[in-house]
């Protein structure tokens, strides 16, 4: 059927051009935000493979909805929000598999750019271990607050929960962290 060649050729050329245009733009966004997205998922799930799975899905969702996003700032907000929600969903879906993670089973932190800012690696590990035991909402609030340096209102919007809930949850998280870190390594270390 001769027309198949013409139609397919035409369609192929145009879709390839569109794909190229999209890909360039998309690639920039992936490279710009991969650390943020992966880190949120990683700190929440405490599992590199799971974090990669979630992060890839987040970027694919971005790819599909790219035309709907209004600005680069919107992309950042959207990615942060979707990563939070997908990480939480992932954790729920795999709750049984994840179950309880013992303190010693948690993975080491993947490599980072600036090793000078690492601080005390043992203390950091302990903190991450305690964070991993927090309830999911509280854990995500702590991650957004201290990984992303997000404001309270920003967190409320990202998780779509009331501002006062963010405040009270963060307050309780601090209390738990103080209590658990105090018990684990001595209050004086904090």
């Amino acid at each position: 059927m001769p027309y198949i060649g013409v139609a397919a050729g035409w369609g192929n050329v145009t879709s390839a051009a569109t794909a190229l245009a999209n890909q360039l733009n998309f690639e920039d966004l992936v490279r710009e935000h991969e650390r943020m997205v992966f880190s949120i998922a990683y700190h929440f799930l405490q599992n590199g493979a799971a974090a990669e799975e979630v992060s890839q899905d987040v970027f694919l969702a971005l790819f599909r909805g790219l035309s709907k996003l209004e600005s680069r700032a919107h992309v950042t907000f959207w990615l942060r929000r979707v990563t939070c929600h997908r990480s939480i969903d992932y954790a729920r879906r795999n709750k049984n598999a994840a179950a309880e993670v013992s303190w010693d089973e948690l993975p080491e932190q993947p490599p980072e750019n600036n090793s000078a800012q690492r601080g005390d690696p043992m203390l950091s590990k302990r903190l991450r271990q305690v964070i991993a035991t927090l309830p999911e909402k509280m854990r995500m609030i702590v991650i957004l607050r201290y990984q992303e340096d997000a404001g309270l209102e920003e967190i409320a919007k990202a998780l779509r929960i009331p501002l006062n809930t963010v405040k009270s949850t963060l307050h309780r998280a601090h209390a738990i962290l103080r209590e658990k870190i105090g018990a684990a390594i001595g209050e004086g270390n904090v």
Partner: protein
Amino acid sequence: MKRIGTIVALLLATQLTAFAQDWDPGGTLKKLSTRASKTVDVTLDRSMLQFASGFLDAKDPDQARARKVIADMKGIYVHSFEFDKSGEYTEQDVAAIRDQLKGPEWSRIVNVRSKSEGQNVQVYFRKEGEKFKGLVVIATEPTEFTFVDLVGPITPEDLRALGGQFGIPKVEMDQNSAGKKGESK
């Protein structure tokens, strides 16, 4: 959540029949949209829901849940407005919409107000005899107004899903997680 669960169980013991609408009493929603800095208008009637359903990915948990929720729905209408500053809409504007929900077929089952945040969420069910035929949510904040109208049958699972799925983390109020006293009224 207990009360919601009870309401859901009572309510959804019956299958809901549909009524189709996307009403805008007195053009209030249209008026608000002209003042809003950001507007979300989603109008999906039965045919559009069916059309959209065909594109939902069964492998994606959110989309799989969405497919179940909308399976027998007749329409989903969501209008959400964000304003640059408070005072862009008045209590009268909201009252014009609430007035439409005062008929005997409507039951307001939840009215949550947060004084500190100026947040107010009201949930209404439309009832005909013992049958529930729709759900309306009116949510107001100083700089935000949201109107949701779900038309058609919803199962208890659907409502539970709506309470904490679709990428939105479910609020799990543990023993210590309640907000400050007086936050909700």
